[in-house]
């Protein structure tokens, strides 16, 4: 009886010990994984060592000591800094990532069974692919990413293509941007912004000749989102497009393209368009361009029955001093309640801006 009890006690104790060992192993593994998977806070010694390196120091001894024991942390630090740096400093960081085997580390991580780690690895490779030697090593993985079902991973593939700066690849990404979900489109639009000039040479004009209204609207939305001057000469035709959705989007671009007589005339006629939304877009552009000749039509729009159009016209008038604010003052005391309210609001904002 005593022997049985003793055996049971030993078995229980052994089992307990095994469970504790298993828990300990799990905790150690978890801690290692947390360290590998890039903690949020970057330790000061790594920050300082990287700062020295980026500032021009070629002494890698401090960084080498760190990479031997805390590869995850240094990978995270390089990835974090890489997003903020440009020029030769960025190239130095990429070169460091290569030297420390981090490109290979992230290539291996793309196969991680943990989706977040895989996505993170693709994102880091995409960032580093701005540097040609890294791009060469990661190209197979990033090209494969284009076929992924995961939109985050596909995004890494598109960023890789953008970094090649080749006109054909940029065109491919632009086409993809139009057909992707809205979030991906927004992000690709941002990545493509610095290549606007290259894209406007051939790819964009080709797209603008498309008869597909949905795609046409997509590309016009991207151009407007770039919010930068674009060398586009073929806008006139779109300003007279039969579909008001296309006209509205084309009107938003007028302040961003070279000012031609055709564009200005189309903008003026859009201020009198039967579709109130077209008038609204035209008013916004006329105000932004401070078109003095648009004043009479804007004043007429201000007296329109729609409060929304009235407000847009008033806002535009406020941007065309000195005559625009004068018109607003005259109308703000008038009998048309909608127009007077819109003019009053715009004047308040105008006076506030002047005071600031």
């Amino acid at each position, binding site marked *: 009886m005593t022997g049985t009890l003793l055996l049971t006690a030993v078995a229980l104790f052994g089992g307990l010990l095994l469970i504790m060992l298993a828990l300990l192993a799990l905790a150690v593994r978890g801690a290692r994984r947390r360290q590998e998977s890039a903690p949020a*806070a*970057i330790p*000061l010694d790594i*920050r*300082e060592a*990287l*700062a*020295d390196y*980026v*500032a*021009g*120091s070629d002494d890698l001894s401090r960084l080498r000591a760190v990479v031997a024991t805390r590869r995850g942390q240094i990978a995270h*630090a390089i990835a*974090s*800094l890489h*997003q*903020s*740096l*440009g*020029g*030769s*400093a*960025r190239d130095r960081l990429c070169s460091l990532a290569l030297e420390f085997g981090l490109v290979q580390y992230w290539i291996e991580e793309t196969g991680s069974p943990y989706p977040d780690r895989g996505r993170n690895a693709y994102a880091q490779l995409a960032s580093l692919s701005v540097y040609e030697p890294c791009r060469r090593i990661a190209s197979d993985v990033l090209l494969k990413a284009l076929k992924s079902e995961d939109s985050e991973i596909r995004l890494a593939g598109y960023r890789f293509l953008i970094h090649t700066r080749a006109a054909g690849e940029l065109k491919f990404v632009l086409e993809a941007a139009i057909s992707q979900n809205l979030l991906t489109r927004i992000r690709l639009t941002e990545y493509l*912004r610095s290549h606007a000039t290259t894209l406007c040479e051939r790819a964009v004009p080709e797209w603008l000749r498309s008869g597909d209204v949905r795609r046409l609207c997509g590309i016009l939305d991207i151009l407007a989102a770039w*919010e*930068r001057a674009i060398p586009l000469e073929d806008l006139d035709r779109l300003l007279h497009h039969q579909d008001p959705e296309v006209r509205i989007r084309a009107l938003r671009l007028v302040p961003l393209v070279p000012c031609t007589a055709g564009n200005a005339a189309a903008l003026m006629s859009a201020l009198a368009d039967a579709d109130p939304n077209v008038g609204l877009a035209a008013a916004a552009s006329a105000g932004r361009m401070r078109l003095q000749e648009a004043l009479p039509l804007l004043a007429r729009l201000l007296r329109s029955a729609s409060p929304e159009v009235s407000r847009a016209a008033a806002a535009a008038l406020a941007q065309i001093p000195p005559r625009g604010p004068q018109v607003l003052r005259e109308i703000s005391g008038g009998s048309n309640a909608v127009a007077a309210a819109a003019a009053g609001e715009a004047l308040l904002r105008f006076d506030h801006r002047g005071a600031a």
Partner: protein
Amino acid sequence: VLVADDDQMVLTVLSGVLQNFGMECHAAPDGGSAMQLLRRLRPHAAVLDVNMPTLDGFEVLSAIRSEALGIRVLLLTARQQESDVLRGFALGADDYMVKPFSPLELVARLKRLVRQ
């Protein structure tokens, strides 16, 4: 030079780079502490991130100008929309740089500002 950025990594790198180029550098992790240091130290120039806790870079810049602290200001931000750049200059920024930025270019711009 005072450098204000809520990204610790960028802050350390900026401070390191400026010190390597012989500039005395003070760092602030947010707009509020940047403002305190600016009032106390009256540096020759300030490099301000725009998106920061407590006070953003535009607010710090406004305060510098309204208090006539006589400090050159370079805004350093990821915000590259035309409206942001125009707002920065309208508030009195002496220069505006967009992230990702080249530290060497930033040093060159700062040197020019300080010389002025």
